[in-house]
């Protein structure tokens, strides 16, 4: 049956009225819903439709019922478009579509349509701002719609489009306003320098409300392939807690954003996979959208919104989200910048504190302790270590926090560890997972719950000295670039060590100077070479912290004799050793230069004593290689400059030896002079005796013979002759007297005993003689002792006015003691004792001493001490060798 042709004008009027009513609604700014409902009703009335509906197209085949009249779906319901129905056709083509059938049972009719009994259906597109927004559809259970129905619908669709556009633009404005307000709120937080977590939570909340989601999460991508929730909001109050971590991987929005750096959406988790999907399912998410947070061009994290409702998010929601994430990125960048600034400030303050310690030349130990404390505090990591490398192990020197690597222990550098890694590469290192690592350190770290650790190398004057290590037991790895922050401190540590080492060096130089001075003093004082050898050994041992010895070279068989030893050497002075390969001294003997023997090359006998390093330097006396000074260390290698530093000591030894040899030469030559002079005097005396004295005797005899031939009457001649004989006798006596002063005959014949007796006998002052020495001694000694006594007695006779003299001769401890004491007036001075002065030279030349004590009124005491045997003139330092 044809409709409308009869009352077309009436229909037009109705239409206009209907349009006006709707337009009024639109103009009054009614929200879309009431407009849709009104339109549905008007259209239905106007077109005599049984059902009218306005649907909004969603993503895919989905649509939302926006307003219906007598339709079976309710407003707001979301459903899938039937692909055979007219509405789907509109969606697909963007053009009106119609469906007619005269026979409700015709097979072409889609099932739901037939089920409802619809005979005719029409749908027209609603285009808003050039985009297909949805459709309006009418259906009739009886007959078809007249052909111009599409046209009449169009007017309404235009109104609807306007209404929607209005509404949407109002919505857009509202939403924009809301967005702006939300952004402003977040921006305020950022400007207020609120801590990041507050900002993240605020953002999550705003986004959640704005996008009408159930859950919002702000997540950060970490260096270990995992993401951490750092801010969240949940409509129902129970969302994914901050700190939750998920591995990136599988099919889920978290991973898609991580891998593509672009927004992603997932409607439905049926075929989602991965840890993130598990979490989503656990919390009942049905669909989610995620947008990347890019900070300074880098993918920093992700903002994720999810809903538990069945309807997916509106189209373009992920892009809305993306716009919002920019703000977060700024906030994060700001916050990071603020954090950076704060951290920078903290770092500078910490560095400043440590630098002040270093500048004040605090001990390295103090600096180490300060550094680990500051690092621990700055990085927020309780456990730190400062390790020094010792060959193939590392020793912990300072540490903070409770962990199994406290100060004092050493660890092997084998296996996997930050300590080992830095030792190998001399660069910063990091470990983020101890699970599969081998080695003692890794095992210990695992059982102590270490999750990650970083280390920065400490380099002192170009060599790798050690490492600072910071350890975390949190699941999150230590933030990136923490190694750099650690590195700032290593320079200070290195400076402290270098300071201390140079301070040490200075102290060492001062010590050395003092030691050299002590030895120099001994040499200047003319101390015995053996004393100097001993002093040099002790000083060198103290300076180098090792054993030290002075050795003389022996040519046959080639070897050394110990002439000076520090206490740590348990070898007696005089021990001799033959040269063997591996002795540093053998090398010196061979090359005439300093030599060093370390480690495995040390002789077994040395190794048994624990010697790990030995150094020897040559002693050269007046151009000839005399011996060596040697050092032997049992704890560690002798420093590389040991040879150089020893040189000064060996020079002193050489000087001392040269001095002593010179002195002994000098003494020997003095002795020789004395002996020669004694010999000369004896010869003179002998010549006098054998020559002149005998001649006088013979003359006397001849005259007496002549006398005997005289006739008795020549008494005058006889008297003359007797006068001559007397004169000759006197002359002889004079000669005897002279002879006594030169060399008393009895001394050679009988020794000191009889000679002193003769002196005593002849003395004008009574002499009490006490002679207990009765062995013959070397001529110079006997002569010297005799003349001392003789001179003393002569002086006493001349000046002392004494009544008694005590003369004693004794032998004690290898010395001959001569003592002459008188009870006279004393006061003898050197003028009177000039004879004694001459004698004192002689006494000293023989290696003895003489002293005169003569106080006014207290008599005079002369004491002389002579060696019992003359020095044999052996070379210096010639202790008798003891074969070892």
């Amino acid at each position: 049956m044809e409709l409308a042709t009869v009352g077309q004008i009436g229909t037009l009027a109705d239409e206009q009225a209907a349009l006006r009513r709707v337009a009024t609604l639109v103009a009054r700014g009614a929200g879309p819903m009431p407009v849709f409902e009104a339109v549905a009703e008007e259209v239905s009335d106007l077109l005599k439709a049984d059902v009218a509906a306005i649907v909004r197209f969603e993503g895919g085949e989905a649509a939302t019922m926006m307003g219906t009249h007598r339709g079976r779906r309710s407003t707001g319901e979301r459903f899938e478009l039937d692909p055979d129905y007219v509405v789907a056709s509109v969606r697909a083509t963007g053009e009106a579509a119609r469906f007619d059938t005269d026979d409700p049972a015709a097979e072409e009719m889609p099932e739901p349509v037939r089920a409802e009994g619809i005979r005719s259906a029409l749908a027209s597109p609603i285009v808003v701002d050039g985009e297909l927004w949805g459709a309006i559809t009418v259906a009739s259970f009886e007959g078809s719609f007249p052909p111009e129905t599409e046209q009449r619908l169009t007017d309404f669709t235009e109104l609807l489009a306007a209404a929607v556009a209005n509404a949407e633009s109002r919505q857009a404005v509202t939403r924009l306003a809301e967005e702006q307000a939300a952004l402003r709120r977040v921006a305020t937080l950022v400007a207020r320098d609120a801590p990041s977590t507050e900002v993240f939570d605020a953002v999550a909340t705003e986004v959640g409300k704005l996008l009408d989601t159930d859950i919002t999460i702000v997540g950060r991508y970490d260096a270990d392939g995992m993401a951490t929730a750092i801010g969240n909001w949940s409509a129902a109050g129970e969302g994914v807690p901050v700190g939750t971590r998920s591995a990136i991987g599988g099919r889920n929005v978290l991973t898609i954003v991580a891998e593509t750096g672009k927004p992603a959406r997932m409607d439905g988790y049926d075929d989602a996979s991965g840890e993130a999907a598990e979490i989503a399912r656990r919390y009942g998410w049905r669909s989610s959208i995620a947008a990347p947070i890019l900070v300074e061009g880098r993918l920093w994290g992700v903002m994720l919104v999810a809903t538990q409702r069945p309807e997916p998010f509106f189209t373009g929601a992920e892009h809305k989200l993306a716009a919002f994430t920019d703000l977060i990125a700024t906030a994060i960048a700001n916050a990071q910048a603020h954090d950076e600034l704060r951290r920078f400030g903290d770092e500078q303050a910490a560095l400043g504190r440590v630098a002040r310690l270093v500048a004040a030349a605090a001990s390295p130990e103090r600096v180490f302790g300060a550094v680990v404390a500051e690092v621990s505090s700055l990085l927020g990591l309780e456990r730190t270590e400062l390790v020094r490398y010792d060959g193939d192990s590392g020793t912990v020197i300072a540490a903070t926090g409770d962990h199994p690597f406290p100060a004092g222990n050493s660890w092997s550098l084998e296996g996997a560890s930050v300590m080992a890694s830095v030792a190998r590469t001399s660069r910063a290192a990091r470990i983020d997972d101890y699970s599969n690592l081998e080695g003692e350190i890794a095992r210990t770290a695992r059982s102590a719950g270490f999750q990650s650790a970083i280390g920065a190398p400490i380099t002192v004057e170009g060599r790798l000295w050690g490492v600072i290590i910071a350890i975390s037991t949190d699941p999150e790895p230590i933030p990136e670039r923490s190694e750099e922050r650690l590195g700032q401190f290593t320079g200070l540590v290195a400076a402290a060590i270098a300071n201390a080492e140079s301070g040490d060096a200075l102290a060492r130089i001062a010590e050395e100077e003092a030691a050299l001075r002590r030895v120099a003093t001994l040499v200047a004082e003319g101390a015995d070479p053996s004393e100097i050898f001993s002093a040099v050994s002790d000083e060198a041992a103290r300076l180098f912290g090792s054993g030290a010895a002075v050795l003389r070279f022996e040519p046959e068989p080639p070897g050394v004799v110990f002439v000076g030893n520090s206490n740590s050497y348990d070898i007696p002075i005089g021990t001799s050793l033959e040269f063997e390969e591996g002795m540093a001294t053998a090398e010196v003997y061979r090359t005439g230069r300093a030599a060093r023997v370390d480690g495995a090359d040390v002789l077994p006998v040395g190794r048994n004593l624990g010697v790990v390093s030995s150094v020897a330097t040559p002693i050269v006396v007046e151009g000839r290689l005399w011996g060596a000074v040697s050092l032997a260390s049992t704890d560690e290698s002798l420093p590389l400059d040991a040879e150089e530093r020893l040189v000064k000591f060996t020079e002193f030894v050489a000087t001392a030896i040269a001095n002593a040899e010179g002195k002994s030469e000098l003494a020997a030559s003095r002795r020789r002079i004395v002996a020669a002079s004694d010999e000369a005097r004896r010869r003179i005396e002998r010549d006098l005796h054998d020559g002149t004295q005998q001649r006088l005797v013979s003359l006397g005899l001849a005259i007496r013979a002549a006398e005997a031939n005289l006739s008795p009457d020549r008494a005058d001649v006889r008297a003359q002759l007797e006068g001559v004989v007397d004169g000759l006798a006197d002359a002889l006596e004079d000669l005897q007297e002279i002879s006594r002063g030169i060399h008393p005959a009895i001394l050679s014949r009988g020794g000191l005993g009889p000679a002193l007796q003769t002196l005593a006998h002849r003395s004008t002052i009574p002499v009490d003689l006490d002679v207990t020495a009765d062995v013959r001694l070397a001529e110079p000694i006997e002569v010297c002792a005799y003349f001392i006594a003789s001179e003393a007695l002569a002086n006493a006779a001349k000046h002392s006015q004494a009544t008694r003299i005590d003369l004693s001769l004794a032998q004690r401890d290898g010395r001959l003691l001569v003592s002459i004491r008188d009870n006279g007036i004393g006061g003898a001075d050197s003028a009177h004792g000039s004879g004694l002065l001459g004698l004192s030279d002689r006494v000293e030349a023989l290696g003895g001493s003489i002293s005169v004590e003569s106080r006014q009124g207290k008599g005079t005491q002369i004491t002389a001490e002579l060696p019992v045997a003359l020095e044999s003139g052996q070379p210096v330092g010639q202790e008798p060798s003891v074969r070892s």
Partner: protein
Amino acid sequence: MTGSGVAEGRPIADPSWVPIRCLIVDDNPFFLEGATDLLKREGLEVVGVASTSADAIRLVRELRPDVTLVDVDLGDEDGFELARKLSDASAAHSKVILISAHAEDDLAQLIAASPAVGFVSKTRVSARAIREMLERAA
């Protein structure tokens, strides 16, 4: 040296006079000559002279003098040593007198320790001095 003026020794008219037989040991030939001459004049019989210990010992054994004058200095040899040897020898009847150009004082201790009967300075050598010393020692 004391000159005596009158040659002592052999009294002109006493047939029982027995001269003292004397050996002189000295390394100085002038002394030997001079002393021998003097003592002979003075009535001593100088039976021989010697300059070395070896000769002295031999001559003493052979000639058996009554007295041997021994110079303390016999070149390299020691007169005291010879005096001891001569005294040790079985010729106990032969006395030794030490002589020397040294003063007696200078040799006092050694002389005292010696088995010789005494010491006469060479300047005082005379028959009378020798005779007196021997009589004292007898």
